[in-house]
């Protein structure tokens, strides 16, 4: 059947990607990968792993409160024209190519503020990228909570924050956590917005938020694969394997648990 062939053509590249990257990535694995810094286009990936972790961590620290707060507004108090406008603009921001956001950050943080390539610029850029996702997923999760729970809480004399933090958010926690995990996966896999904001560094973090470039895993993938030697290629595959492992593990885990809770 032609349709089955189409599905095969769609799914086969995914399996091939996972296969090629796993085989090449695993053969490049060693303890050295996690304990030494990149030197030129060889060495280990410690600086890049740490950089990706830091960028993701600070991006999440900025984006999670903002995204969940915005989601609370949209779901609980935003069923009006202003809410629709925010929802529309949030979708526009989601659809904006990440390179455009990266270039915007370059103009603002690197050129105008003079921060130089830095952790702060990178984390803020990624935060702008994931906030709209978080807001919309939080909104969807909170909307699933039945209205009777809100009414019951208000009838007991609960205030707005009590209703949201003690009743609605706990009831919708799995959805909100799902959203945060998906946002985490996005920020680990992003490259384009970091080119113009994070720069690259062969060293681990020196504790400064500005005036100090940071390395990140996806940079290793796209630059080292263009180097001529096998050692750089091995590093690129190892980095790709790590990134893919995190992204796929989060996405598969989320899908499996969400499915289970839906059926029970």
């Amino acid at each position, binding site marked *: 059947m032609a349709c089955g062939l189409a599905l095969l053509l769609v799914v086969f590249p995914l399996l091939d990607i996972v296969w090629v990257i796993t085989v090449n990535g695993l053969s490049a694995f060693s303890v050295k990968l996690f304990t030494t810094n990149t030197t030129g286009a060889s060495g280990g990936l410690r600086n890049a792993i740490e950089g990706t972790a830091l960028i993701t961590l600070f991006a999440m620290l900025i984006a999670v409160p*903002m995204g969940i707060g915005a989601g609370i507004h949209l779901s609980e108090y935003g069923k009006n024209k202003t809410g629709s*406008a925010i929802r529309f603009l949030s979708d526009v921001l989601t*659809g904006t190519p990440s390179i455009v956001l990266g270039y915007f950050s370059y*103009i603002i943080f690197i050129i105008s503020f003079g921060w130089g390539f830095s952790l702060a610029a990178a984390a803020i850029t990624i935060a702008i990228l994931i*906030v709209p996702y978080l807001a919309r997923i939080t909104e969807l999760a909170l909307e699933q909570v039945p209205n009777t729970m809100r009414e019951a809480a208000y009838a007991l004399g609960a205030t707005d924050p009590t209703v949201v933090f003690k009743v609605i958010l706990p009831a919708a926690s799995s959805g909100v956590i799902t959203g945060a995990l998906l946002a985490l996966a996005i920020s680990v896999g992003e*490259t384009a917005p970091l080119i113009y904001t994070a720069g690259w560094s062969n060293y681990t973090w020196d504790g400064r938020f500005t005036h100090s470039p940071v390395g990140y895993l996806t940079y290793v993938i796209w630059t080292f*694969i263009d180097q001529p030697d096998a050692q750089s290629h091995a590093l690129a595959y190892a980095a790709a394997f790590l990134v893919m492992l995190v992204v796929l593990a989060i*996405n598969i885990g989320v899908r499996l648990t969400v499915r289970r809770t839906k059926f029970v």
Partner: protein
Amino acid sequence: MKIRPFRLSVFALSLLIPTALCAVVLFLVIYSGQAIMFNGLHFLTDVNWNLGDMYDDPVTVHGVSVPGGAEYGILVFIVGTLVSSGLAILIAVPLSIGAAIFLSEAVPGKIRPVLSMLVELIAVVPSVVFGLWGIAVLVPFIGHHLSPTGNGYGLLASSIVLALMITPIIASTLLDALLQVPKENRESAFALGATHFEVVSKAMMPMVRATLVGGIVLALGRALGETMAVLMVSGGGINILPTSLFSPISTIASFVAGQLDSAEADPTNMSVRALSEVALVLFLITLAVNASAKLLASGALNVRKRQS
């Protein structure tokens, strides 16, 4: 009206999203102002992107200081973007329609979640990993078997990678819509003696057509803005329009991503401003495409309501 601090504070948080968007647009416009004045409409119609002589004294044109001989034209990148995304859509649409129909019609309900999860997972693979696979597998394949010059980097490789990346968007949109077609419609078509092919093509597809078109336009928006995968397999062609499937190309997004070093080397900052104008053009194109996807999607809802 009573002041409610909690509601006000979450409202303020939600306003940060539109604020961020407005800041992006505003600063891109302000920063590219001088470039817009210098380039005029030639920006969109010129083939050459030439940074000029950055080591000589800058010259002043129309009151704007630029490196001598600099010209900024992005026609090549606009064409590269539209052609590669267009080809990607041409490849992806039949594949996604086939895959979605197979999943909704031929796969038993128990296996369907597994297979549709596989399709959805394609959408979450990072763009740079697609690019790596393109370099490792696709580009050598095209170079050895298809390309007359033996060079696999170019338009075809970009389009195929883009097609793979957007297929899950179209396929899962269509699958959701197909599964929502009321059972009665299917069954009455079967009862009238229609073959399975006729049921799908004449009874089901017309009902989901608007949703399908919305999904395709959404996928187009994603393809237009895709950066890393294209940057890695496109061959980075500049200053020449693509002539064949194997010509090296650049898209607007991949060009911006690849220009960091030259932008930083320009003492007049003009190339940074021109790149900002490029980013602005990309933003406007994707905005237009995504807005039409949104309109189509809302139209699709109306159709479904009317029919049910």
